[in-house]
């Protein structure tokens, strides 16, 4: 942003969404799941820190802050603690119930819930359809919450239209899917031109986990995406939007800032060289889904297993990969080549190897092939 632009800024906000606090990662091992669940709270802490560093005027959280309307206590307690650590009297935070954490009587948003009661005065819950909050003399926020996990209503249509003489910066805060995403008609659809229709300067949306900015530039609708990736295949995640509203009705300036710790990578290694190369990379902050499709002899298999231990770690050492999810169904042992076995093996072990090799030649001989590798490994370990 040019300095002169900064001087003309009338309002700064940080727009975030889809924290999904409390989301489980049941595909992962328990210790890895904990790393990932904790990372979500860490990301919230980082984004709140970013809000401080930018001295934004307000923080807008556009829904799905919790993965469930009634998360276990540890999650909302920790979020309260993050808020309590900050004394933002002049920087309101707005929490919008989304489709994952809709505004319902049993939810954390209910008036009597300890989370709601424990929120500082500067944290506001968007708990009515005609929610309106003046951010300054020049800016106003409108919002409408989700009240169920699914709905066909366009919540943006509940925001008031701009009056002809209204020159303020008008910001909308809703949760849902814009119409251009096919097959989501029951997921709170939002018209693509909702911002234009309602006369909004900026429409802050949550739901889609990728960072997306929808035209027009004059009144964009923006998904900041999830601050931490929630699953493989998600693109452009791990950001928040810091938005600068210039005076004189000029279009807002949107900056995309990373706040995530983890990079989720899907890697497919088809040869041991690729696996070696991958292992040399910096994977410390990486959630790695590794698919192995290769046929190796016992020596190579031993190397593959060693690399996998190197990546995943064991009881004594940390793995090179932050989190490893391994699909080894395509990893096959080629039993035709038993060159890795010591020629001086006792006859009985040679006989065992030959028997397993013979059994392993059959297509269904996967167990025999694995047993052959175990034999190789055990002999190697047992050798003085």
């Amino acid at each position, binding site marked *: 942003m040019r300095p002169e632009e900064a001087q003309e800024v009338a309002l700064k906000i940080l727009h975030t969404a889809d924290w999904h606090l409390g989301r489980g990662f049941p595909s992962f091992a328990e210790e890895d799941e904990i790393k990932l669940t904790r990372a979500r709270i860490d990301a919230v802490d980082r984004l709140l820190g970013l809000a401080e560093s930018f001295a934004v005027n307000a923080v807008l959280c556009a829904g799905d802050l919790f993965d469930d309307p009634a998360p276990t206590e540890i999650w909302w307690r920790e979020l309260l603690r993050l808020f309590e650590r900050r004394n933002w009297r002049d920087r309101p935070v707005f929490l919008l119930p989304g489709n*994952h954490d809709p505004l319902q009587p049993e939810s954390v948003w209910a008036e009597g819930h300890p989370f709601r009661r424990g929120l500082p005065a500067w944290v506001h819950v968007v708990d009515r359809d005609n929610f309106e909050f003046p951010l300054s003399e020049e800016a106003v926020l409108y919002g409408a919450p989700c009240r169920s996990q*699914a709905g*066909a209503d366009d919540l943006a249509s509940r925001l008031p239209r701009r009056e002809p003489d209204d020159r303020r910066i008008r910001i909308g805060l809703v949760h849902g899917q814009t119409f251009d995403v096919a097959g989501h008609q*029951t997921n709170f659809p939002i018209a693509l031109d909702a911002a234009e229709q309602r006369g909004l300067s900026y429409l802050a949306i949550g739901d889609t986990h990728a960072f997306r900015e929808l035209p027009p530039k004059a009144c964009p609708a923006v998904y900041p995406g999830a601050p931490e990736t929630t699953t493989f295949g998600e693109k452009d995640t791990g950001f928040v939007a810091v938005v600068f509203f210039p005076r004189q009705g000029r279009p807002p300036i949107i900056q995309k800032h990373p706040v995530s710790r983890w990079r989720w990578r899907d890697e497919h290694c088809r040869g041991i060289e690729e696996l070696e190369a991958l292992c040399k990379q910096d994977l410390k902050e990486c959630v790695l889904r590794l698919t192995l499709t290769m046929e190796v002899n016992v020596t190579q298999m031993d190397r593959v297993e060693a690399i996998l231990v190197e990546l995943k770690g064991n009881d004594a050492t940390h793995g090179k990969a932050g989190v490893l999810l391994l699909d080894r169904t395509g990893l096959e042992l080629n039993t035709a080549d038993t060159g890795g076995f010591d020629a001086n093996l006792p006859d009985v*072990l040679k006989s065992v190897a030959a028997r397993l090799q013979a059994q392993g030649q059959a297509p269904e001989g996967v167990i*025999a092939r694995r047993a052959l590798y175990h034999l190789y490994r055990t002999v190697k370990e*047992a050798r003085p």
Partner: protein
Amino acid sequence: MKLLSLKVEHFRCVRQAALEFGPGLNVLHGPNDLGKSSLAAAIRAVLLLQASSREHEEFVNWNGTGVPYVELAFESEPQRIWRVRKTFGSAAQSFLDESRDGVDFHVEAKGRDVDGRLSDILQWGLAPPGGKGRPKGLPMTFLSTALLAEQDRVAAIFDQALSKDSDESGKKRLIAALQAVAEDPLYKLVLARVQERFDEAFTSNGGRRRGKNSPWVQVNEQIRQKEEYERQCSEQLQKTAAIEIELQESHRRQLERQASVETAEGIVQQMEAFYRAGRQRDEILGRLKESKARLAEISSVLQDLAQAEERRHAILLQVDDLGKRAEAARKLAAGAAQRAQAAKDEVARQQSEDRIRESLLKRTSIEKRRAELEAEQARNATALDRIQAVETAAARVRAIEKESQELTQSVKDLEERHSQSAQALSAAGERERGLRAVAQLIRCRAARESLEKTEKGLAQVNVWREEAARRRAAAVAMETALVAVALPSAALLADLRQLDQQLQIARARLDVGLHVSIRPKGGLSVTLQSDGEEPAQHDLADFPIEATASREIVIEIEDVAEITLSGGAQIARDEVERLQKRWLDEVEPALERANAVTLDHLGRMVAEAAQRSQEVQEARRAAGQLEQRAADQPDWAGQQRHRQQELASAEAALGQADRAVTEKLARELRVADLGAAEKRLETLRVETGKLVEASRKLDSELAAANALSVEKQKALAASREALLAAQSGVEGDWEVVLPRVTGRKTAIQAELIVVQKEMEALTTGTNQALTAAKKALEIAERARVAAESESAKAADELRAAERRVATSDGELAMRREAAAKLDIGAARATVEQVEGELRLVPEPQQRVTEEMLAEARAHVQSARDELRRIDDEIQAKRGALQHVGGEVAKQKADAAQEALKAAREREHFLETDYAAWDLLRTTLLDAEREEGVHLGRALGDPIARRFGELTDRRYGAIALGPDLETHAITAAGDARPVSSLSVGTRDQLSTIFRLSLAEQLQSTVMLDDQLTQSDAERMLWLRDLIRELAATIQILVFTCRPTDYLLPAEMKPTKKSEQNKPSVRSIHLAQVIERSATAQASATK
């Protein structure tokens, strides 16, 4: 196994004996016939023979007293002590007692069970009693033969084989024992580790472990939890999916119902329009009918007036004629009266003399009269013919006029229908043009949409290509940057690091610790530098200085000297120097080339370069994918040209049509797509065809009617001319003249008859003349009366006609007065006006009644009710969907399925992995077992080795089969049968064989005077072997030559206190055996 003690009573020659065995060599010696073999037999019997067996008879005490009883204690494994008690014979009894300390026994088995348990304990290949294959009598197996061989069956072992045993236990025991010997240490280690892994997951009997640490329990619990979670999520998802399907179905029905409502409303609107048009037309037609009726009424009145005028005129003419007729009748009456008078006169005359003359005169007069009457009759007939011709012509004119009027009306109707048909055709043409425009508009729209799609596709392809180009450019740039920096390969870097590490290690070896103390003897400036640190200058006077360092101290004494003190051996220093040189030659240039400061720095640069290289590959791969994706796209450019042509063609076809109007028309017609437009057009074409056909038919009908009308007009004109021509031959109105002429015709005919009669009467004679005159008089009188009657009648008719004139005048006056009040012009104008209105309201396509309209409205209402019900249904389903979760449920279900899949894959991997450990373990055991099954190989070597030592290498390998059957022995390079050996040698070989077996089994072996044929030298060797083996196994030797086994010092019986010593025990049987009396006597003899 070790024997502990033996107690024998009444057994063969032994009345009683009790002895205890040592753990090593037990030499039981005594003279012949003392009972050594009986004790050996007692041991075999108590272990192998069932107490009730018939074989016991040979054990019966020789003096016939007492019952044979044997009690043997033995230890099968440490602290597992058994005691067998058997009483043989008819009162046979067997007991097996067990003890841990050899003192306190408890009964473990009785009777036949004892032998079964013994089979289990000994594992000598003997089937339990009752079991299949157990031989009768004293059963001997391979092992029992080997371990308890009888004195006279020394070489029996060569005839035995494990395969002949009654069960497998002996063989298994040997396999187990010999395997342990044969196992390779590596094999054992591998097996132990594999067993360890096997034990993690499986129990000893191969079942899966169930404890909390069992991997199966953990993974199964994970799967169970995940299945449960997945089931819950799936249920929610199924509910969501079901509701969404229902919702889609409801939306579909809603759309259908909306369309149905709109269609029904359209139909109602159309029907209402038709209905209104029909009503309006009916109203106009009603008015037209009324106005026409009024016009007809006025016309009728006027026509009636004209007819009344005509009738009055006719009546006046009739009156005039009647007056004339009355006058004529009166004249006729007067004439008839005159003739009657004349007839009277004639009668009178006839009755006078002048009647002939009178008759002549009369005839002349009559003939004259007849001639006049006939002439008149001819004229009258002519007149009547003319009048009839006029009448016929008039009737024809009237008929033609009527037909002409009907034809005119028909033409009018046809013209009206033709006009309506033309209007309908025109309207259909208009509609068709509109629909064609709509269809073209839709084609335009579709073509535009297709064009937009192809343009989007083309744009997307361009974007991909640009992105691919950008990525390739980025890859090239990165690659260029990579090439610009000269970095070592990973292998070279590793070498450099290794060199660096070696240098550090070499330097560390120089770190021996140095200390220098300098005591000046005068003023001196010294600079000290320790281990390459900053030099420190010292000005020394009286105080000494000290310096310490790890590996090097440099002392610079002013400008005098520089002393370097280095630690470490010369070889270490040389190594440092060598490595430093290498470092300078290899590392330094690499650092300079890469502009790196340290090796770590260089390492990071290499890693970054590798990362960049990876990114280059990534960028190239991404570019390739993008290009491939772009290449995989359809030919958007070609499609774009094609679509543009389509659009241009469609635009051209649309032409100058007003698009707004066409759009509006499309909306009005609710035509949204080309199919609907084409369908409508087709319907319209069919309707237009029908209209054209109807119009064509009307045209032909109208032309035919017009032609007929012209013909009728011509026929009418001709008839009218014929009427006028006919009328010209008639004086006056033929209708008036006709009755008069007809009356005259009748009168003339009557007169002619009278004249004829007169004539006849005149002709017939005088009397007859008189008669005739009288008759004539009579006729004349009747004629007079008739004429007078006719005259009176004519007068009456005249009066009646005059009255009708009067009446007619009155009526005429009234009609005239009424007609004066009527305005036929206005009535015609009204009719024309209404007809004009009617033309403005064409006949609707369909006649719609109120009932039809009501029915259609009811249909609309029904459709609206259904739509409302569907709306309610959709709302309810949306509510249900909100409840079950929608997209949230889908996401959770996806995550749960993925987690379950991952858990199952883990389980599968675990199963495969542990199955592999299981298979490996089984294969290890199988392989080993199969290797060890050839027991002959395992046992052959030690036997051959020992036998070779014994025979001074005279004999080589002994060929033993897999089941330890003895095949041959190698002697002088050839395999020879064992039977070819001398008895002594065979006994020696047998003893070595048995001792070796006992050694492997760690079992007691009993030698019953088996080496009696051995020479002293070999005996000595065998004694040493037996004594050596006795260190580990128990050997019982029954012998009468104890010196063959014992050293002289050992000859005396072992004391109680020495009995625990494992080595050698000498048992003098004479001291422990009490022979039976008979036996003693026999022995004494």
